[in-house]
């Protein structure tokens, strides 16, 4: 009886221990299910099509060409492989340019009437390109539906335009977001690293024990402060400061994000680096001193190399955190989805994009799926970061 009870409890404990694994698997399942739905889709909004006159030799366009045509950046069919003819752009509301109110009377109630009118317009204008609802395509059309290249992984990563809600085609190029994320995160670590290392060395070797006992809890406290509070501080203090110092049109820049992130990454870097410096075996430290090396030479030539794998782990971990950090960055970087040229311009990171846009995206739509795809990327990055850190610390244990 007692035995069975113990067995049941053990079984229950076992089940609890599998929850994290299950959660990771569920995250993968849900993120990737939504995220991968994006690929292979046509980038036009569902229920809409792009059509041209039947006699137009062009039958295929890619998303960027379509966008440029509708933005009037491309104005001649020759530019996309057609005849030398200027392009006439037609959107649904343009119908009023072709017909009077009276002629369109009754369209509200009779969809086939609208369809036939649209068909008429397309028939009459051989140089037209029309963005219309699929419902308004007549059964026997004189128009031709343009095949638009499907969204694929390479365009997703390499595309330089992020216009997830633009019409008639949305563009999901995350290159600027990736660059924004990398710029902001790496600069953050660049700022945090010298200070973090200096502080770690100071605490581990130079400071009196009493000083260290004060600093240690202070740093723990700082690591517990919510990221919105740091973001708020950045917005109130750092952003105006940068704007004034560099005389910028806006203070919300990549640099502001980097500074805030650096402040946030510091506690992790300090703690991990200090631990690994302190983990240098005393006898190795003593051996160096016993040879007449100064304390500083011992720190620099023996202890830091000894702690280097731990410090590397701290840096990688810090970068991982920085890449995934959302709120603080969202609040201070200005969120412009452009490829950065200088750190003093607004930037937008992957997590900030998700946080800012998910609320307004239609559930299950392309935009929604694209944001989940961004989530997948973040997930993969953190997985790689974790496995790397894991490998480093394993190696360290073996070296002991």
């Amino acid at each position: 009886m007692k035995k069975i009870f113990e067995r049941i409890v053990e079984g229950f404990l076992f089940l609890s221990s599998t929850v994290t694994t299950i959660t990771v698997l569920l995250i993968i399942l849900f993120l990737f299910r939504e995220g991968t739905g994006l690929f292979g889709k046509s980038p036009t909004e569902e229920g809409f099509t792009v059509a041209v006159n039947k006699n137009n030799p062009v039958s295929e366009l890619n998303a960027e060409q379509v966008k440029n045509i509708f933005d009037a950046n491309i104005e001649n069919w020759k530019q996309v492989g057609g005849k030398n003819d200027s392009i006439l752009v037609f959107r649904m509301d343009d119908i009023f340019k072709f017909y009077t109110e009276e002629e369109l009377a009754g369209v509200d109630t009779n969809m086939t009437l609208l369809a036939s009118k649209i068909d008429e317009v397309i028939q009459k204008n051989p140089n037209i390109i029309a963005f219309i609802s699929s419902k308004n395509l007549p059964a026997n059309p004189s128009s031709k539906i343009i095949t638009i290249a499907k969204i694929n992984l390479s365009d997703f990563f390499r595309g330089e335009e992020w216009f997830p809600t633009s019409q008639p085609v949305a563009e999901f190029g995350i290159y600027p977001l990736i660059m924004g994320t990398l710029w902001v995160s790496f600069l953050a670590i660049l700022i945090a690293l010298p200070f973090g290392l200096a502080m770690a060395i100071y605490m581990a070797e130079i400071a009196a024990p009493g000083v260290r006992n004060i600093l240690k809890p202070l740093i723990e406290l700082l690591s517990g402060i919510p990221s919105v509070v740091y973001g708020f501080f950045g917005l109130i203090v750092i952003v105006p400061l940068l704007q004034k110092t560099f005389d910028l049109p806006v203070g919300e820049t990549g640099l502001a994000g980097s500074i805030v992130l650096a402040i946030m990454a510091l506690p992790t870097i300090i703690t991990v680096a200090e631990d690994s410096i302190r983990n240098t075996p005393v006898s190795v430290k003593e051996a160096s001193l016993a040879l007449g090396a100064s304390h500083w030479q011992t720190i620099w030539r023996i202890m830091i190399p000894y702690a280097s794998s731990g410090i590397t782990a701290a840096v990688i971990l810090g970068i991982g955190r920085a890449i995934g950090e959302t709120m603080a960055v969202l609040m201070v970087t200005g969120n412009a989805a452009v490829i950065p040229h200088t750190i003093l311009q607004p930037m937008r990171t992957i997590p900030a994009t998700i946080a800012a846009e998910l609320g307004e995206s239609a559930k299950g739509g392309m935009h929604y799926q694209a944001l989940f795809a961004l989530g997948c990327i973040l997930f993969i990055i953190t997985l790689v970061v974790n496995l790397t850190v894991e490998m480093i610390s394993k190696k360290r244990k073996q070296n002991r």
Partner: protein
Amino acid sequence: MIEAKNLNLYYGAFHALKDINLKVAEKSVTALIGPSGCGKSTFLRTFNRMNDLIPGVKIEGDIIVDDENIYQKGIDVDRLRKRVGMVFQKPNPFAKSIFENVAYGMRVNGISNEKVIKEAVEQSLKQSALWDEVKDSLKKSAYALSGGQQQRLCIARALAVEPTILLMDEPASALDPISTAKIEELIHELKKKYTILIVTHNMQQAARVSDFTAFFYMGSLIEYDLTKTIFTNPAKQQTQNYVTGRFG
């Protein structure tokens, strides 16, 4: 010439060394023996001021090394430690190549002429009877060596800065019998050039390698004499009991 005069050492409130007076003979081996915790290591570490690193240590009395009280003000501790080499209980090579382990002491002491360093490394490795085993793998990590080889590397490392005194804290206690024999043989060679202080809790080892022996008990120096005398005809009953294995 090294000497401890009225030496008292406290770890906080704990009185670890009690009024020690001891004169060490030059170019000879002096063994420090006694039960675990009696203060042998603590005493040894006063000669290169290694105890300075431990917070709360208080030292009274004098330690004289080469006619100079090393605890007086204005002493350059780094320079002192260069003159007084130390070998530890467990081999503790740096995470560097074999060559760089030996070269380290010279580099931190301002020698930058690679030719000089190279010669000194070879010389030291020969002195520690390791040269033949490693001369083709100087660039390899010191961790690739066996425990016994690592300890001889640590001895070579200590010799490379040309000390006059060598402190050895149970240098063979973590090694197998063959490596131990090699280290003992080496000590025999080294005493021609160096004054050696060695801590050991192995009675046979003390008898084999040392010329003089000091017996410590609970922080006090009980007896100090020729090794032969200590092991055959000690003046104190306590010493007699210890060397014959009746306690400790």
